[in-house]
């Protein structure tokens, strides 16, 4: 597809945000993904053009990170953490349940085009294990029933909220946020006591970070 002038300008704006324009590649890939729902060859060409890179250099990055999709995605992206912590605490069960509900496997999209399912790695949110992500917003302390309900609401177009606040708006909207645009249209996720427990404990026993000097 051909990108609109707005996208080109936004890409150039991103390039201008860094001392070395090449640093803008990661957000820029999110930007083209927010437009197309995937990183297509055209998206790669746009990034290469704006940053004066070879397309192979952009492709190397786009294919390295799993968050960039080289194939079409559904309206929503649902990630189920199946790493050790979440897996044991229910992540595996959630995965099995919804994967068979949707008849959709890892990195596949449901037949109705609404949900792309992915088994994801640890989200550094083990405090609230098992976690699920809905368009990369957290769905903490997930249960099979809770996730089933959320997914059916999403598929029916009802409003679903992250357990930390933000409304789930679709993968492309989240991608735009990741690209560094429309920050103010999203609610800041809440922080709770459980997340801070480690910090409090460290303070109690007087633990500090090791000095950075070597």
């Amino acid at each position: 597809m051909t990108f609109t002038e707005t996208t080109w300008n936004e890409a150039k704006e991103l390039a201008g945000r860094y001392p070395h324009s090449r640093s803008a590649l990661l957000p820029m890939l999110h930007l083209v993904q927010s437009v197309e729902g995937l990183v297509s060859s055209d998206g790669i060409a746009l990034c290469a053009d704006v940053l004066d890179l070879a397309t192979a250099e952009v492709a190397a990055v786009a294919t390295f990170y799993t968050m960039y999709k080289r194939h079409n995605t559904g309206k929503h992206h649902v990630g189920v953490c199946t790493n050790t912590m979440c897996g044991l605490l229910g992540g595996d069960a959630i995965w099995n349940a919804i994967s068979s509900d949707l008849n959709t496997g890892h990195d596949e999209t449901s037949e109705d085009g609404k949900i792309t399912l992915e088994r994801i790695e640890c989200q550094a949110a083990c405090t609230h294990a098992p976690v699920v992500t809905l368009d990369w917003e957290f769905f903490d302390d997930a249960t099979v029933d809770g996730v089933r309900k959320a997914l059916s609401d999403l598929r029916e177009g009802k409003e679903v909220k992250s357990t930390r606040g933000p409304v789930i708006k679709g993968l492309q909207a989240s991608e735009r946020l990741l690209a560094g645009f429309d920050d103010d249209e999203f609610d800041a996720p809440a922080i709770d006591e459980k997340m801070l427990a480690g910090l409090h404990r460290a303070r109690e026993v007087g633990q500090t970070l090791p000095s950075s000097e070597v």
Partner: protein
Amino acid sequence: MTIDNTPVELVTLTIDDIEVQVPKGTLIIRAAEQLGVQVPRFCDHPLLDPVAACRACLVEIEGQAKPQPSCAMTVAEGMKVRTQVSSVMADEAQKGVMEFLLINHPLDCPVCDKGGECPLQNQAMTNGRGESRFDGEKREFEKPINVSDRERCVSCARCTRFADQVAGDPMIALLERGSQQQVGISDDQPFDSYFSGNTIQICPVGALTSAKYRFRSRPFDLVSVPTTCEHCASGCSLRTDIRRGNVMRRLAWDDPQVNEEWNCDKGRFAFPYVQEGRLNQPLVRGEDGLLHPASWTEAIDVAAKGLAAASGATAVLAGGRHTVEDAYAISKFARAVLGTDDVDFRSRPHSTEETQFLSSVVAGSGLGVTYADLEKAAHVVLVAFEPEDESPMIQLRLRKAVRRGRTKVTAITSHVTSGNKKLNATVIATAAGHEVSALSELALDANTIILVGERAASVTGLLTAATKKAKESGAKLAWVPRRAGDRGAVDAGLLPGLLPNGNSLTDSSAREKAADIWNVENNTLPFAAGRDFGAIVHAAVNGELKALLITSVDVEDTQHSASTLQAIENTPFVVSLEIRPSSITELANVVLPVAVVTEKSGTFIDWEGRPRNFGQAIREHNKLTDGRVLAMIADAMDVLLGQQDVAQLRAELAQFAAPTNRVDAPSHGADVPNGLTLSTWNQLIDDGALQEGEPFLAATSRNVIAGLNSKTAAAHSIAEGDLIEISTSLGSITVEAIFVDGAENTVWLPTNSGESKVRTNLGAAHGNIVTIKRGGGQ
């Protein structure tokens, strides 16, 4: 050569309990080499930045819990390193990595091109386990890139680092991740690099192979001979691999002073001409006007008689592809046997200013500016010279210098090219023909090197300006010709008025000395300076010459091919020394087949002035050198020159002392063209005769386009992508217009690529006036 006397700071460490001192900053893997300890390695390459990608080189370092990659860690004072020689930990780590690397490797050595010369094969034996414990399924890939076997790749990133760091063509990259990681290109941008062949050579496994060589041979079937590349004046050391009298492949050979470990794809792949379509027998034109095969005796006899009969009206057109020994033999033959000074190697456009420049500044000047000098220079100015196309090793060396951050490059040229972008060059966009003022305005100092290219000859005043600029500023000046034999031809005296080693023909003592060395009467040598190539052609067109001796000339190179052919046609007797039939063969009276470089020994003098000797690679073909053939003709003309074998010619040339009276430096004023001019140079990979028969190489040539500034285009109602017609009074060329970032009022065309045959169709040189107009629409 200057010797760097800065003291080196040394660091003392022990490796396997042996104390060793190495310069600070040395990598552990190199320090181990000093002791003769070979740590296994794949990604490590002395000319690439370290990445520690393959982990094959793990060693134990006292005080560190885990083994460390020795290819990426520098030594430290008192460091205690243990390699596989004295550490179980290092040995097991290395074996473990090797086992991992082999998990996905197909182990298809019996059908792999690399088999027998493969670092993976070798190191799996020395530093791995004998048997695989892996019985799972290995990854497999389809083969969309025709020369890559991705399953064999060990992800060392040598190829990608070479492309990115050395060549500046980052069109190959490691795609995907984990066990799917693979080398690839993006669908819309092929790996069009002039240097792609190097990746095949440095790939430590058989993942990248040459389309041409694939499945053709085994290393142990080959006889390898060190050779010098004949394709340009960069002077690359090559290794030519021969099987039963045939060249199977050519590789870059390691010469740190010249090409380091690299070469270009032309030098690597353009060799089929050695085998295919050669002239194998002398030909003599008979009464019937047709060429007939003849014996050597008969052909030499006819040639000798014809040349003798034409005495007083003969000329020699020599071409720029000769070894210095053959060039010398031709130079001598012209003066001592034919008694003519009408001799010139410059088949391409040239000028009297250039004759003077070459005779006074270049001839016999020995080693001048070197590759090492380029690397150390603060500033390098490129004048009428496009290194990527015209001398690729200069391009790579300059890129290396620029990447280190000490060297800056300025290019005086018509537009920003992909080559000077990779050098981060400041481009002074200058319409062709206007270079003199651009150069004069530059402020230069003694830390500057000026490199002036072949096409400077066709810009009046430019070589004068470059010489003057160098003198005034203390900058060093080097002339970079395009052909491998050009510099040697100058040293051999293949120019009117010039004897070997920079001696002037009109200097009576030098002429006497020459007569002495050549063993002829002084008065048989010509007294006055003769005609240059253009003047010879002109005289011949007017029927003023009775005989021409032509060797190694491609009419496509000459200023106007049709005139050159006319000149040959109008000359009653023509002797041609050739390797393959050409348009000259059609017109010659006697055609004598000669050896190509692979079939003889000799010396090329590279642009630095460095002699590049090479031995005979193929003995089976029994071909004669130009020098030998000329000796036979001389013999038949009753002038005894001796055997004229390569060693004898070399020794004789060395007898020419440096000149006492040099030819004066040129002093030509600028003559600025008034109008739209043609900017042109030969692309590295083009329709040159020696590149024939190599479709894989030809496929990597660049698109044939006309490059021009958008304002100039607009002034002629030309839009990007339009077909445009570029013409002179002699003809026209129609190609697609592409906008370039460059000077106004100038249009760029490749000299000899596809539709764009500048010499044949326009009869024009760089800087000449041309007209352009839109022609034919999209």
